[in-house]
């Protein structure tokens, strides 16, 4: 089955799901991480420790809770999302959003506070200031993005539970590897593993290239 239409479909689905989940995580994590890094409000460090704990969420636990929510018997059962790619995207977003949020907060907090004062002094608006801070920490922010993507493209527990590993529908590279190993097709399993590593490498290579080009500017 290697290098045929099915492998291509599984690979593209893996990429689409994990890229979308990482993208949504960025939309959540960038503003939330910025708020946690720069905001001054009660309970900020408590929230930050929750986010930091979330960076190590076990995917199977996320899978279990998302599955229980989406099952027909669950609170969101009427949406009929269980065993669809959307369900995997939801679970993967829950896994990667804390990673992106936590690393964004850490990146912004390493900036020299005097830089903010200087920006205020130059008459920057709040939005202009945040934009300048993001530009300034674009290297660690891209690293946050890579870590977020890495945490979901390699994840199997949640995808298996909420996706169901259904052929042509929700089978992704990691769940296909589990299946082929279970069948005793170790050669195919290894080939899929190499494919997964190659894809992860290519994505990170592209992001690192952008990052390092940014570093030189």
């Amino acid at each position, binding site marked *: 089955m290697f290098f045929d239409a099915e492998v291509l479909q599984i690979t593209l689905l893996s990429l689409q799901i994990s890229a979308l989940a990482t993208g949504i995580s960025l939309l959540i994590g960038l503003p939330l991480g910025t708020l946690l890094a720069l905001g001054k409000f009660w309970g900020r460090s408590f929230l930050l420790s929750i986010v930091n704990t979330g960076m190590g969420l076990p995917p199977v636990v996320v899978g279990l809770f998302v599955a229980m929510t989406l099952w027909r018997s669950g609170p969101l059962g009427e949406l009929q999302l269980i065993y669809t790619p959307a369900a995997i995207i939801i679970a993967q977003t829950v896994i990667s959003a804390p990673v992106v949020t936590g690393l964004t907060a850490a990146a912004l907090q390493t900036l020299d506070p005097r830089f903010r004062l200087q920006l205020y002094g130059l008459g920057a608006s709040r939005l202009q200031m945040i934009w300048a801070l993001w530009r300034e920490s674009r290297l660690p922010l891209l690293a946050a993005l890579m870590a977020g993507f890495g945490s979901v493209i390699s994840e199997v527990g949640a995808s298996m539970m909420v996706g*169901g590993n*259904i052929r042509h529908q929700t089978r992704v590279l990691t769940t296909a590897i589990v*299946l082929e190993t279970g069948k005793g097709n170790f050669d195919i399993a290894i080939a899929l593993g190499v494919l997964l590593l190659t894809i992860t490498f290519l994505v990170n290579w592209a992001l690192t290239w952008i990052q390092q080009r940014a570093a030189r500017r």
Partner: protein
Amino acid sequence: MNKKLIFAFLILNFAFSACSNTTPDNPKLILATTTSTQDSGLLDLLVPIFEEAHGYTVQTIAVGTGAALKMAEEGNADVLLVHAPAAEIALMDAGFGRDRFLIMHNDFVIVGPADDPAVIRSTTLAGEALNNIASSQTGFVSRGDDSGTHKKEKSIWASVGITPAWEGYIESGQGMGATLIIASEKQAYTLTDRATYLANQENLDLEILVEGDEVLLNVYHVMTVDPDNWENTNYEGALAFANFMVSDEVQALIKDFGVDKFGQPLFFPDADKTDADLGI
């Protein structure tokens, strides 16, 4: 801590083996079996008795039948407890197995939603039931993992000349428990072994619709890996386990297993029968 204990245990084992003949030379035995025997809890009952009586430490690896047979072929297991007779015979013929004993059977059943949209409840033949499901294009969840259950499903499709490929026919690629949950959620049909269905019944919105057809028998054999191919295999232990499984004591335990919990046995002992008695 644990490693030290095991080490101490091994030293003790060596010390005792000098003066006792119940401890074997090679006490490590790898049993490759299917998830269905593991999930039912039968091995949790039998393996400790075997370990106690014969001095072996059994490492039970529960995988799909396909992987279990592969493990035998590659010398990664010493003894198998599996349920795919045709594939087992092929492995014996290829010279990878030495002894093969009939142990027990249970049966497969076709389960589905109570309202039975494909009208299979009235059928008695499994092939006819699958035919109805295919012609009405209702949902069916296949294991799709090359397991013993999947092989059985494929053989029934083949017997009625249908290649299942419609929108509602999906492959889960997972174990029986997970596949039953998917079928329940999708209100689709599936083929399952009775033991796994009974064990999960309370979480499922599915009913047994077809049972009792002879082709639905699920027959388990124990098979020793031929030591001629791989010198590191533990043939002595494998044969001891095979003989243990056909012993009167174990056959009696199999007969009663599950009755207290489910009100019916999960497996039926067959050591006194032949394959022909079961129609295979």
